[in-house]
């Protein structure tokens, strides 16, 4: 062996040693969020910090009951769930229950602003079927910043139909939630507020790995990114089954196979998949984003070397989480059910109308800060929080036609309903998109049609939102709002004072509101302290049971009660002793 050869081998050895060392240290265990169950959920949102980058400074984050992200809420169809959302952030926020069918006043959109130090207590009966939903901030012009800080969490809805199926259901063992997102860290390890990050995160874990048992495993995948779409697949191109989309389980598992089995997941979307790891104990496989195959006008397919949209992850393939197969659990799931649930979708012939929503670029908009060359807009106008763009009669079935003249693809999200995709450019939507959805990627220049029924919850005052789920676009005004109205409801137009009695006063733990007119009720109650700080926000409270004021310290408070029929506001003072 000559000297040069010996030196080369020495260097090669060193490289292998360094790489081995690096790879041994380079994975972090995928963090699985804690779960909360029951019907009362306490969620405290706060500014905090977390050691996300392995070395160096901590990152300033926003967490719910913890350092980053939030607990997974496991709720049951048919239950009335009560949320106790305490905003201890340094700023106002909102929490939107993404995908949930519920009254608009409970929805947590941009109108339900929770000031710092305030407890917001929405509640609703869970009408959604078993599904994977999520919750996140929806504060207009601040969604991108607050989502980037990590505020959010999964919601798992369970029901009897899903429980009867032989599906993986052991949370964190064979039923694994994975929120996929990307972040940009600056030299101080702080998040940059940018649309595309350079670092992929799974459940807020960088370079994640996780042990999966050698059996069928259910992955609940959420795209929690600001902008990126992820073209998901596995490093060995294994096939997998899609069992559920945004709004619940499909009629039957759908096999995704072929040479390159993929599923494109855009911002806000969820998919539930079954992956077979049987007999593979000791092996590893990566869940990957194959974004090199995405076009330049799909979020994540862009490849800018510099500027605000530059990202190392643009138009490239990368690992999301390494899955290390271990031994099977007791009573493993070893097969895929032939069928899942019976979904009844609205029929096109029942649609009362086709509502056309345009997606376009608006050159020359200067009234809002715009990161790119144009703001993207819906219905040819920027979002105006004081404008209701559409009014939909309660129980109406509608076809929505999303017509894009935008050059770019936008994940369109609608609140209140889950919809059924009909066609894309006149062609029946792909099978894998045929389940219940609340987000659909509308590619540039294409026309997407879906059908939905707007039932159960009418409210002429509080609107629902529809918007692009790219948080940057939403913040820049690519959003509109609609109300669902009940034409049979009678609104009193009265300027006369509405007689109510507050008792006891002084009060201690409970405060009761009695309307003299039994037909009247409270639509909204807010309580402020003597300095004008909002302490409690109570949409449609059960006033007959008394309002829980145990969180208030002693003092004088002002209560504002909005009467349901007339929307007249009655203001009174009371004392807590």
């Amino acid at each position, binding site marked *: 062996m000559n000297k040069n050869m010996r030196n080369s081998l020495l260097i090669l050895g060193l490289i292998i040693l360094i790489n081995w060392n690096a790879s041994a240290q380079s994975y972090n265990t995928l963090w699985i969020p804690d779960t909360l169950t029951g019907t009362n959920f306490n969620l405290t949102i706060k*500014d*905090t910090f977390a050691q996300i980058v392995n070395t160096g400074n*901590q990152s*300033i984050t926003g967490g719910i009951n913890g350092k980053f992200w939030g607990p997974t809420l496991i709720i049951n169809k048919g239950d009335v769930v009560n949320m106790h959302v305490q905003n201890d952030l*340094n*700023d106002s926020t909102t929490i939107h229950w993404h995908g949930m069918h519920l009254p608009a006043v409970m929805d947590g959109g941009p109108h339900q602003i929770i000031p710092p130090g305030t407890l917001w207590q929405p509640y609703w009966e869970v009408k959604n079927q078993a599904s994977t939903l999520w919750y996140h901030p929806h504060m207009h012009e601040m969604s991108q910043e607050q989502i980037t800080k990590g505020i959010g969490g999964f919601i798992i809805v369970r029901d009897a139909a899903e429980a009867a199926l032989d599906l993986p259901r052991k949370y964190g063992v064979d039923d694994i939630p994975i929120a996929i997102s990307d972040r940009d860290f*600056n030299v*101080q390890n702080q998040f940059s507020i940018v649309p595309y990050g350079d670092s992929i995160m799974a459940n807020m874990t960088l370079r994640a790995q996780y042990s999966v048992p050698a059996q069928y495993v259910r992955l609940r995948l959420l795209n929690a990114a600001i902008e990126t779409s992820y073209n998901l697949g596995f490093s060995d191109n294994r096939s997998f089954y899609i069992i559920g989309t945004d709004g619940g389980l499909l009629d039957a598992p759908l096999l995704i196979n072929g040479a390159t089995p993929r599923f494109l997941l855009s911002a806000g979307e969820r998919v539930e998949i079954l992956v077979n790891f049987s007999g593979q104990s000791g092996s590893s496989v990566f869940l990957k984003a194959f974004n090199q195959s995405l076009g330049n006008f799909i979020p994540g397919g862009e490849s800018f070397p510099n500027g605000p949209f530059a990202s190392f992850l643009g138009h490239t393939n990368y690992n999301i989480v390494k899955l290390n197969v271990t031994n099977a659990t007791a009573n493993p799931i070893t097969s895929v059910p032939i069928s899942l649930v019976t979904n009844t979708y609205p029929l096109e012939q029942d649609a009362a109308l086709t509502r056309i929503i345009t997606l376009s670029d608006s050159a020359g908009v200067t009234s809002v800060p715009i990161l790119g060359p144009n703001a993207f807009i819906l219905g040819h106008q920027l979002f105006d929080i004081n404008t209701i763009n559409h009014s939909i009669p309660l129980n109406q079935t509608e076809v929505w036609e999303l017509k894009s003249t935008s050059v770019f693809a936008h994940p369109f999200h609608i609140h209140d309903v889950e919809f059924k995709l009909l066609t894309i450019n006149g062609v029946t939507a792909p099978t894998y998109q045929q389940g219940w959805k609340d987000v659909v990627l509308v590619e540039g220049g294409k026309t997407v049609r879906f059908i939905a029924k707007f039932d159960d919850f009418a409210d002429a005052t509080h609107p629902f939102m529809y918007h692009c789920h790219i948080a940057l676009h939403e913040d820049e005004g690519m959003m509109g709002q609609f109300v669902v109205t009940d034409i049979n409801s009678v609104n009193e137009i009265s300027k006369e004072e509405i007689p109510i009695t507050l008792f006891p006063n002084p009060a201690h733990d409970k405060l009761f509101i009695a309307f003299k007119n039994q037909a009247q009720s409270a639509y909204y109650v807010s309580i402020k302290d003597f300095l004008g700080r909002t302490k409690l926000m109570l949409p449609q409270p059960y006033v007959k049971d008394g309002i829980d004021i145990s969180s208030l310290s002693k003092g004088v408070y002002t209560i504002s009660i909005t009467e349901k029929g007339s929307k007249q506001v009655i203001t009174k003072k009371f004392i807590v002793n």
Partner: protein
Amino acid sequence: MKTTLAIGVCILFIFVFGSFNLTLEKRVDNFTLLNVNGKNVSTQDYKDAKGFIVIFTCNHCPFAKLYTNRFNELNTKYSNLNVPLLAINSMDTLMYEEETFELMQKKATKEKFNFPYLQDVTQAVGKLFKAQHTPMAFVIWKENNEWLIKYKGAIDDNGAHPKLANSYISKAVDELLNGQPVSNSETESFGCAIFYRN
């Protein structure tokens, strides 16, 4: 021609030297604020001070809470060298109940602050410094009987692990005490945002 040239030289002079002072070494006025002991504290009270470590902090911010011991240590070390530490709370007390003067007093007592903890109730001093976060640090230095900002930004580069941290503040103050320019005069500050009422 001569006049034009003279004006040109003046503009160049202002551009080169004036902007330098305006951007990197902004002058700040003396200020007086109420300390948690109930007495006013003024920068003018410190006749021998060569400079001050001015730190904007608050009661509730989790990241700011990591730094209490370091504030005490900085003050112990540098007040003896006539560079005392002043901590200022510019948080809006109307918005944030945890930032009241009474709770500042409790915190200072409980955590044995060895430095003044001042309430900027009008937020005037916060605005003067353009403080953005808690914690955010400034080093001001006396030159020609004026206070010039010589450093602004983070305290160090590791909030949770003080032993691993490189102190930007210590480095800046040590350099100034040695008559040297501050080699790293600005870093990014982060923590909880300070919101100002108009």
